[in-house]
């Protein structure tokens, strides 16, 4: 299921946030949206989820316009893991995962045995079965992120939209979460669209990067083409050294400002 965005304009409260944004995510591919704070990354993700109304241009998920779909149909198409998920205190990991089955449960009905089985399977795949009965407020940061992924997985949507899945995680848990997403993408043929702050991490995992700056696409393409020292300097105001890593994907390192602190 591909995601296609063409010439997208979005205003929030009368303020232009996205202008003329286009991107293509082929079915089963992983695209990462990068860019400085306030560039409009999260808004782009929300437009793909059909949560904000475009002012102009078109968004297509599997050929459908998410904004015009009913919430239930939309939720069967795109699953969402937000940057700051609300984790209701006291709710168990299992019940939270079961929320992912909402688009399949009759509105005033209750979940079926199949819904419970799908939720249990999602937990199993993310090694969370042992935590099924634990309340959300008693999880570590890494566990929390996995639980949010489990809920998205239980949604069984072909497209996964992740907003900053690695924020607030240490380097080991960042790798763990990204490896998990990669495994799910490979095994289930999921199409992944993620925003991400860490440029090296983005370059390691995504097939393609889209660099947003000031609400416009500044560059897009394979990581090696987008992540150049010039682009990072121009759009993030950072001095970095870019070198190809062992597998040819770019690795960024910050350069200390000369003449400061000496």
């Amino acid at each position, binding site marked *: 299921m591909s995601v296609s965005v063409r010439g997208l304009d979005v205003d929030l409260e009368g303020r232009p946030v996205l202008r003329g944004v286009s991107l293509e995510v082929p079915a089963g591919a992983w695209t990462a949206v990068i860019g400085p704070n306030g560039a409009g990354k999260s808004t782009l993700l929300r437009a793909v989820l059909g949560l904000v109304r475009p002012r102009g241009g078109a968004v297509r998920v599997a050929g459908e316009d998410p904004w015009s779909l009913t*919430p239930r149909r*939309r939720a069967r198409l795109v699953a*969402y893991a937000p940057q700051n*998920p609300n984790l209701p205190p006291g*709710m168990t990991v*299992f019940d939270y995962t079961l929320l992912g089955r909402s*688009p399949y449960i009759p509105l005033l009905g209750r979940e079926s045995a199949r819904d*419970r089985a799908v939720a249990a399977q999602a937990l199993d795949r993310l090694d969370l079965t042992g935590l099924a009965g634990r309340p959300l407020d008693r999880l570590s940061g890494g566990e929390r992120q996995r639980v949010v992924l489990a809920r998205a997985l239980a949604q069984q949507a072909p497209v996964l939209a992740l907003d900053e899945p690695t924020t607030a995680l240490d380097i080991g848990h960042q790798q763990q979460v990204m490896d998990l997403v990669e495994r799910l993408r490979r095994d289930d043929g999921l199409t992944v669209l993620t925003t991400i702050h860490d440029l090296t991490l983005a370059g390691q995992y995504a097939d393609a990067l889209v660099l947003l700056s000031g609400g416009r696409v500044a560059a897009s393409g394979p990581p090696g083409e987008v992540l150049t020292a010039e682009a990072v300097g121009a759009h993030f105001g950072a001095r970095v050294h870019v070198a190809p890593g062992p597998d040819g994907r770019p690795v960024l390192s910050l350069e200390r400002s000369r003449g400061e602190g000496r």
Partner: protein
Amino acid sequence: MRTREAARLRPLPLAVAVLVLLAAMLAALLVGPAGLPAAGVVKALADRLPFVHVDSGLAAVDRNVLFELRLPRVLLGAVVGGLLAVAGAGYQGVFRNPLADPYLLGAAAGAGVGATLVIVVLSDRPTPAVPLASFAGALGGVALAYGLGSTAGRGGSGTATLVLAGVAVSSFLASVQAFLQQAKAEELQRIYSWILGGLGLADWPTLAMIAPYAAVAVVTLLLHGRLLDVLSVGDEEAASLGLSAARVRLTVLAAASLATACAVAVSGLIGFVGVVVPHVVRRLAGGSYRIVLPLSLLGGAAFLTVADLVGRTIVAPGELPLGVVTAFVGGPFFVLVLRAVRGRAEP
């Protein structure tokens, strides 16, 4: 396996709640100025069941006390308590705030205006119009707050503006009520006793009057337990899970406000039930609204039945206003809850 099951009401807590309610109601039927024999009361009640014929041995006078005075009052107390508690739970789900109360959006102040208006204008007659006016006033207050909140909050975040609109409407209507009350100081006593709340109106026609609205409200609320659980992750995430948050919120608010209006119409303003009872339920049985809604209904019914029993026996032959009893218990409890909630991570 227990962990593989969704949060839902299990038979044991349900049975306990039903038993507590039945015990409270039986106690309330037995205690009063006219001492009724327990066995006779139970037999007389059983006699009213379909296909059951028992000779209660109660005198005609006692039967009258039981069926025309005590039973309607006990039932009304249970209904009002259940309505307030389930409405409070509904409001808490919609606002994702455990301290939300059924009067949050101006139901109390609106009902106050309605009741005061009728008492002041039709002062020389006993007024069956008071319940009707309170009912209309409560719904009117909520509608005003909702209308104001959704106009002012267009494009912004919904619930915060709604709460602010509720505060504004409440204080505005309270000032209208005070003005009306000022205009006719000799009715102060009646207005005041309405505000303090009570079940003095209890009779069968009163029960019949609110029954249809109460039934619709309660059934609607109980059906929305799972959806309120989904809503607990916030509007945007709920939308990404296929829920139309605005529609669920409007439906639950309408049903909870209808329940509140029914309660206010027949009993005046009874505070704290709507906050205290859902809290106790959450503590004892779990936080899912599939559990909180039905158990609040039963728990609120039991709580108000007992509160009314206390109110009419502790200073017998006098009567403490019901609102005073619930606030006396509820006030200190509220502080305890606040202390316990403080320090827990709130979104």
